[in-house]
């Protein structure tokens, strides 16, 4: 089984958040506000933004510029998840590249922490991560 694209993993994780930690997803939407965040991870490009029903979701990158652009790789993101480096270290080492106005980057980091607070409380999240690690976690 080959690794799935970052965007697919992110979509699945948002579905788990919606089901198992809906309050965190609501808080994530509030934190993002009107800001869109574009991710490019190993060439897979997706946008996170608040959509219908004020719920944040994962979609395709549109014509409008995002508030923040994130460039990274699967290896770097797994390194963050596994505690091999912190966010600041990843930025310093160049494996996580954030671009945008400082206040928008700060807003993105706040939103990221809210997402993580929800993710670590979701019983369904380890399977999402296992699948993305390509260790054959169960399909959901």
């Amino acid at each position, binding site marked *: 089984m080959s690794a799935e694209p970052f965007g697919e993993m992110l979509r699945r994780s948002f579905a788990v958040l919606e089901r198992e930690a809906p309050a965190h997803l609501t*808080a994530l939407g509030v934190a993002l506000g009107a800001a869109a965040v574009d991710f490019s991870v190993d060439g897979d490009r997706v946008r996170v933004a608040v959509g219908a029903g004020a719920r944040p979701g994962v979609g395709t990158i549109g014509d409008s510029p995002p508030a923040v652009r994130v460039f990274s790789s699967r290896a770097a993101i797994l390194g963050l998840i596994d505690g091999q480096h912190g966010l600041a270290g990843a930025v310093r080492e160049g494996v996580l590249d954030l671009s945008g106005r400082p206040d928008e980057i700060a807003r993105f980091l706040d939103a990221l922490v809210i997402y993580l*607070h929800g993710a670590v409380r979701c019983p369904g999240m380890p399977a999402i991560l296992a699948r993305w690690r390509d260790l054959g976690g169960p399909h959901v």
Partner: protein
Amino acid sequence: MTPALLLARGGHLRGLGAGDPARRSKEWLHVAVHGPTAEIVLNLNVFEDGDPWLPPGVPVGRTLWLAAVDGAVRGDVHRGARVEAKEGHLSLAIDGDAITLADGALRVRAARPGFAVDLRLVPAVRPALAPRIPFDTADRVQWFLVPRLHATGTATIDGVVHAFADSPAYHDHNWGRFAWGADFAWEWGYLLPEAPEEPVCLVFARLLDRRQHRVRSAGCFVWWGADNVRSFQDAEVGFAPTGRFTGPLPPVPGVMGLISPDRRADVPARLQVTAAGSGDAVSVDFTPARGGRILIPDESDPFGVTALHEVFGAGRADGETGGRRFSFAGRGAFECIRVG
């Protein structure tokens, strides 16, 4: 009765039951082993998850491990899909990781990425029970402890096999109801003698409010030979932490470090515990050497984190109980809860 028989009689699983609508029931088995080349902690815990998709009383399991090799500590938390908890027996298995009482010893097995153990822990002392410890206004937790065992077997850490032969080990078992993030914190530790012929070992603990402003209860428990010969309580016990531990405390699991990245250790560089009463006295001087920061999402606050700082170290204990004096050097651990 032998230590093993008393362990079987008192150390069995109590089960979570289904009578708690708030779903705060928890139970865990904890072992720590101090070997010549590695120190390990394995904690198998079951709890009721707040997951509304699960019916009440269904246990969710977690394997938590820590390993210290050459001063470097790492660990992880695995949420298990298959829990086999034999209520009434001392036998708990989570996805194949297991702590089971068999043939008078604890069999401890686990296999996680980068970490595997296969150990036999023979109890050297009779257990003690600290009942109904008040965690919060309504929550009570029981603490069953067997602080001195002899561990034999292996731990394979990052592919390197570490052998244990009658190495000093510790075991305890807790069960009760509480929510992570509620108004409590604990500080707890033990000192086991380096010399196998040394008859004394010690456990010390105190329970505080979450901000550590008020001590709710304290205890210092002394074993001489196989018996818990002295239990100092509350006002008899004093904790004197000094300095600040400056070594690394890696987050466990690693992902929690993104939420709680503060690496300033709220762990003392040195801890002195004294206890005195009725002509008996104990003094413990413990120095943390290496450890990790186990980070647990709060149940009472959707954006809160509780940090269990778990450090291995060495120390000395001196004292007198029942007219007999003791003095020994030993190894042990200290754990303190802080707001993460």
